[in-house]
């Protein structure tokens, strides 16, 4: 038997999630921020699969499928927005994009 246990996967998934979150916090580039969101989603996916393994159930896998679909849709729309914003504002800096603030 391997010493590999699902909880180790969980730890990795959470570390990745934390890194994604940190990136989301400190980066200003909208593109990178979107990538960070992908990172976080992946982290969650990993924990889904790991829990699936722990629980002897396939529901986690299904959830991952749905998350992937949503992620694809999200990145498509998100990137579309980024392009639109860049076209009008000539920047992808999240701090510069404040037209809704006032």
């Amino acid at each position: 038997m391997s010493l590999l246990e699902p909880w180790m996967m969980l730890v990795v998934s959470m570390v990745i999630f934390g890194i994604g979150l940190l990136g989301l916090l400190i980066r200003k580039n909208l593109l990178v921020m979107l990538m960070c969101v992908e990172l976080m989603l992946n982290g969650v996916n990993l924990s889904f699969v790991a829990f699936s393994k722990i629980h002897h159930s396939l529901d986690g896998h299904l959830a991952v499928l749905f998350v992937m679909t949503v992620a694809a849709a999200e990145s498509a729309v998100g990137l579309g927005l980024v392009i639109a914003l860049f076209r009008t504002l000539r920047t992808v800096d999240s701090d510069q994009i404040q037209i809704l603030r006032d």
Partner: protein
Amino acid sequence: MIDYPLLAFSAFSTIAILGSLMVIFKKNPVASAFALVAVFFSFAGLYALMSAHLVAALQILVYTGAIMVLFVFVIMLLNQDRPVEDFKSSSGIFKLLSGIAVSGFVFALVKVALLARSLTPRGDMTEEKISELGGNVKAIAESLFSDHVLQFEITSFLILAAIVATIALAKRKAHSGRGHS
């Protein structure tokens, strides 16, 4: 005897963590994007280790194949003339706070993860049952198209909406672009 799964896990997880760190710390978004590709691949490996073959395959197809290509396209499309004032613009205290917050967060999450050690299985989908059903892919497909068919159908609406939204964004761009210049 070499514990190959553990070895593979160590390799994949190290790549994943290092890759993600590169994603967030590389100044150039192109570098970030390529680091992200590495992360996605290693994730596929991790899935495979847990015998989630379908997910592993989809990971490569959807993330690496579709999403990453999209990212790279956009990066090239934008072709930023001036770099984003990335790390400089946030104040030190903000970064410090972020670091503390995120490490606290991860710490708490890991604590939760360790709690998972004591969890007992609740389902009946053991390895044997899955192979009896005809493999991972078949088992998932059975479940997806029977119990979760409604959710499945709804995702199609989501994707449709995303397509419409993206097209709408693209079209508006053309208009405003003309008006703008």
